[in-house]
């Protein structure tokens, strides 16, 4: 499921936060209901642990609640909230001692590929659905989990949450060019690995 920024709602989030700051606790509850699940999916996809994501999302909303007074109302609420969640998720990954070391199995015969567009041109259409849905889901989750943290977080923010480049740069506190290069790398790595997985599964099933 993709979560895009809802332009039709204007600055509804900021209005809710302003109402909350005026003493309306129900306004904050609305924000929790509005973004709780989206934030959970973001954090879970990033840290790859549902239980940890549950805790991180709770902590994020508590920090939002406690720090709302300092929020600059000229900014957007959603990227600010994601910034807090991303920082907490990164802290968690660091505390956990990083992920288990798993080497990414690259096919070094693909040394020619330089970017996703080149990959598309070389690879042709995406693999057909000859593999069972369950296997495909497992393969996708395994591949995403093995992406380096800094590539995975950009991929999740871009694909699932559709943050504009500039907002991703703010959330991740990195230059705009870095966001683009990381996203490009993440998508290329994902597509390459997925293609390889599907080919292997198709051949083994044949």
């Amino acid at each position, binding site marked *: *499921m*993709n979560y*895009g920024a809802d332009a039709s709602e204007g600055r509804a989030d900021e209005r809710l936060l302003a109402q909350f700051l005026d003493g309306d606790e129900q306004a904050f*509850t609305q924000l*929790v209901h509005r973004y*709780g699940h989206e934030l*959970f*999916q973001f954090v*879970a*996809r990033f840290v790859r642990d*549902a239980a940890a*994501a*549950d805790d991180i*999302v*709770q902590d994020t*909303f508590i920090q939002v*609640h406690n720090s709302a007074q300092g929020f600059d109302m000229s900014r957007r609420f959603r990227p600010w909230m994601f910034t807090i969640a991303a920082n907490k998720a990164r802290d968690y990954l660091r505390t956990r*001692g*990083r*992920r288990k070391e798993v*080497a*990414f199995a*690259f096919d*070094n015969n*693909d*040394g*020619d590929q*330089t970017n*996703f*567009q080149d*990959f*598309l*041109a070389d690879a042709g259409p*995406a693999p057909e659905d000859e593999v069972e*849905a369950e296997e*495909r889901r497992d393969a*996708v*989750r395994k591949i*995403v989990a093995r992406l*380096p943290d*800094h*590539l995975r977080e950009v*991929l999740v923010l*871009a*694909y699932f949450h*559709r943050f*504009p*480049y*500039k907002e*991703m740069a703010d959330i991740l506190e*990195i230059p705009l060019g*870095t966001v*683009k*290069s990381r*996203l*490009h*790398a993440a*998508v290329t790595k*994902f*597509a390459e690995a997925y293609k390889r997985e599907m080919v292997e599964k198709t051949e083994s099933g044949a």
Partner: protein
Amino acid sequence: MSGDSKNNQARLDVLGYQLGLMDGDERSAIESSFTNPNELDAQCRAVAAWLAPLAADEFELPANLAARIEARIAAGPSTLKLPTDEATAKSPFLSGRDLLALAAAITLFVGVFLPSYRQARNRSMQSACANNLRDLGWATDLYRSANSDVLPFAGGVSSPAVWYRRPQQSAPTSRDLFRLVDGNYGPSEIFVDSASRGDYPMRQPSPETLDDFPDPRNSSYGFNRRLSLRPWVIYELSTRTPLAADMTPLVDANRHLRQTGPMMVNSPVHGGRGQNILYADYSVRFHPLPTLKPGEDDIYRLHDVSDSQYTGYESPRSMTDTFMTP
């Protein structure tokens, strides 16, 4: 799609265009770069098809998340109640029995937990170091992708066999690693070996001040210099070719460089227990042995060695020979 119908920037940004990450001006630039709108549509459909499997990466939503958040907020910050027992407050001094118990507890803690703590800390640093190296591999791959398959460490010498005989200024130095930092190919933290106490990340340098690592504590990993002598591409390398290693590679008793001080047999940054090596397939392995033979050869570092000091015979004898620089 014909190459004339788009420029390179547009080719790179079709991904952002398809995902809707651009502002209006950027979208217009992409659209105007395609003479045939159908080509842009076809590109977008292809991008979408390859991204579609990602939708399967969905986590099951936890029950009552919003309610639990509200409950925690309603409960407010938790506070610890201080003991109010009068007996505790009677005397501010510890009895002899208390002191004995305290000493026993401290002794037990030091004897049992400290070694475990050190072991856990070493494992943690070794793991963090390996992750740094792996990130360095990804950054190298990004750099290679964006620079016509040229790897980032170009030392400017003609042969790995003779560089140590050249004047020091001609030898490659770690300043070449700035290309990775300056080009935003990876986080600057990756240049710090996590096993080195007191090290700190590289700061983002400006092109005007591009120079060698300004402080010894910035020194980190050594790159496989030989790979960059000409535009090698990854597929020409064995997957077991080492790309980078900890700051001090392995030197054994038979093939060594004479240096002042005791001879090193293992990287000191991991307590002399071994060394993390990054290979061309971006895997990282810790080698606990004092010698390493990837591709039937060892890894050496020729740091701070002049002609007169050099007594080994580490000139490359085969294409698999690997030399590290600081």
